[in-house]
């Protein structure tokens, strides 16, 4: 006897065209709730572009102060990302799996610069590394003064932005399956090799997004910079400082820099997103 196998197709999903139109409209209209926040973010950014003509933009770019601010912002924020990654990776790796009280305390302390108002960070840096500061007073007899230098800009940016990298990287490292690491160790890999060949390839997405967050925070850093590094065109006047000072006399300078910041941020975000999508799809 031949068993008759009836192939039963899975029940088809309820066909949308069978539901009443009004019900469908109401059910789909929840998406309208996304509009308020979306518009609130997009309208101010778009209005920047309406306030400035392309001719004004070109005039703005021709000013030395604008070009200096752009160059300084780019170099300092890049240095901040490199510094944060170099110094933050060991810390992230230390924190990512430990549950001891010490590790939890360190974790909370590393979170502090994220929640502190940037002005507080600036004052803190000044009281530590200023000429009369805790560490600064030991350095000034040696001829090393940090406030009002480009190094101070990088320090201020690193102070507020590096914790973002540490958190992101630690999350990424924690996401790597312990079994994979044990397997590698069983095969004879030492700790560094495990890190290099197992942890990093599996967590590089988090590390990259940590770098991106750090860069974004560093580019936008204002309060700590103006207090600790001061404001000097070409040396410490980053784009946010130039926008703040420029806003008060020549709105075009502020608008030019704002538009450049928006455009640059958008391009970098889109690029990284493209890279991430390309790699993840493989």
């Amino acid at each position, binding site marked *: 006897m031949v068993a008759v196998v009836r192939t039963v197709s899975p029940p088809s999903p309820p066909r949308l065209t069978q539901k009443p139109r009004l019900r469908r409209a109401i059910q789909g209209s929840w998406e309208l709730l996304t509009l308020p926040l979306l518009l609130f973010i997009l309208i101010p950014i778009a209005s920047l572009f309406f306030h400035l003509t392309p001719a004004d933009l070109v005039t703005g770019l021709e000013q030395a102060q604008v070009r200096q601010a752009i160059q300084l912002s780019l170099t300092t924020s890049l240095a901040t990302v490199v510094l944060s990654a170099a110094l933050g990776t060991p810390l992230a790796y230390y924190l990512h799996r430990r549950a001891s009280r010490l590790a939890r305390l360190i974790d909370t302390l590393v979170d502090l610069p994220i929640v502190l108002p940037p002005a507080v960070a600036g004052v803190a840096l000044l009281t530590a590394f200023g000429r009369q500061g805790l560490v600064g007073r030991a350095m000034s007899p040696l001829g090393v*003064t940090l406030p009002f230098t480009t190094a101070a800009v990088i320090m201020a940016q690193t102070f507020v932005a590096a914790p973002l990298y540490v958190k992101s990287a630690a999350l990424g490292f924690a996401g790597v399956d312990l079994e994979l690491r044990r397997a590698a160790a069983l095969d004879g890999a030492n700790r560094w090799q495990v890190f290099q060949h197992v942890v990093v390839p599996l967590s590089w997405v988090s590390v990259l997004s940590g770098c991106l967050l750090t860069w974004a925070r560093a580019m936008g850093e204002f309060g700590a910079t103006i207090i600790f590094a001061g404001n000097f065109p070409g040396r410490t006047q980053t784009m946010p400082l130039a926008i703040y000072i420029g806003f008060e006399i020549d709105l075009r300078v502020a608008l030019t820099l704002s538009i450049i910041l928006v455009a640059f941020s958008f391009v970098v975000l889109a690029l990284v997103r493209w890279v991430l999508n390309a790699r993840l799809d493989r």
Partner: protein
Amino acid sequence: MNPLPKFRSLALMLLLSACSLSPNGTAATPRPEPPSTGPRSAGLIPITVMAASSLTGPFTEIAKDFESTHWNSKVLFDFAGSQQLAQQLANGAPADVFASASPQYMDTVVMSGRIQAGGVKTFARNRLVVITPASNPAGLKNLTDLARPGLKLILAAQEVPVGQYSLTFLEKAAVDPAFPPGFKDRVLANVVSYEPDDKTVVTKVALGEADAGIVYSSDVFGASAANLVSLAIPDALNVIANYPIAVVQDSQTPGLAPDFVGFVLGPQGQAILGKYGFVPVTSP
């Protein structure tokens, strides 16, 4: 025909058109509604005074005296660089009184239409002084030392009134035979930072982060005075800054705001300003 996409796009268009307001930033914006909390709800009438940050000391005391004589008033302050306040006022920020450290920024607000030119009065004068930390780490003895290489000098940004006045002083010194040639350029080469207002200059010099700064003589009074030493600038090189004050046109306290201005110009207000190192005006 499916009405859903039409409904959604119609809603979107309505929202977007509601949001496309006039882009003209310099036109007077409609006054905001008074807040439902704050001094008004307590029965007090708030007077918003936008004042240059160098007026923080005297105006705070003037406000206390004013409130004791005008029992139903509450003076609220917004202290910042005059350039910032002028920009905010020109863009429609609500305020009742504006006191600027320079006539230039009062003119900015007059041109925007928020203040009537006839209502502007000078209420105080100020002069410049060079300050150093109490320990005077660079050993500054006279004004020519400002050009000494390696000195760390902090000035206010040239957009700020006191910054502009500092540059004027340097220009006057440049043509004065008592000062060596190239004085102005060498002094400017010593500047390490241009701050957004005079109070920040005072704080950083008082902290010892810089060797010298140029601020108003009124800034050397008060809490920071103990940490500062000042070096006088002779009258011939000094800049006398005239501080104008005026009532903002669309003030929500048309009765009290002129009273406040009158109080500042009157004997009590002038005495307090004098106490804080300002030069009072004898006739308004």
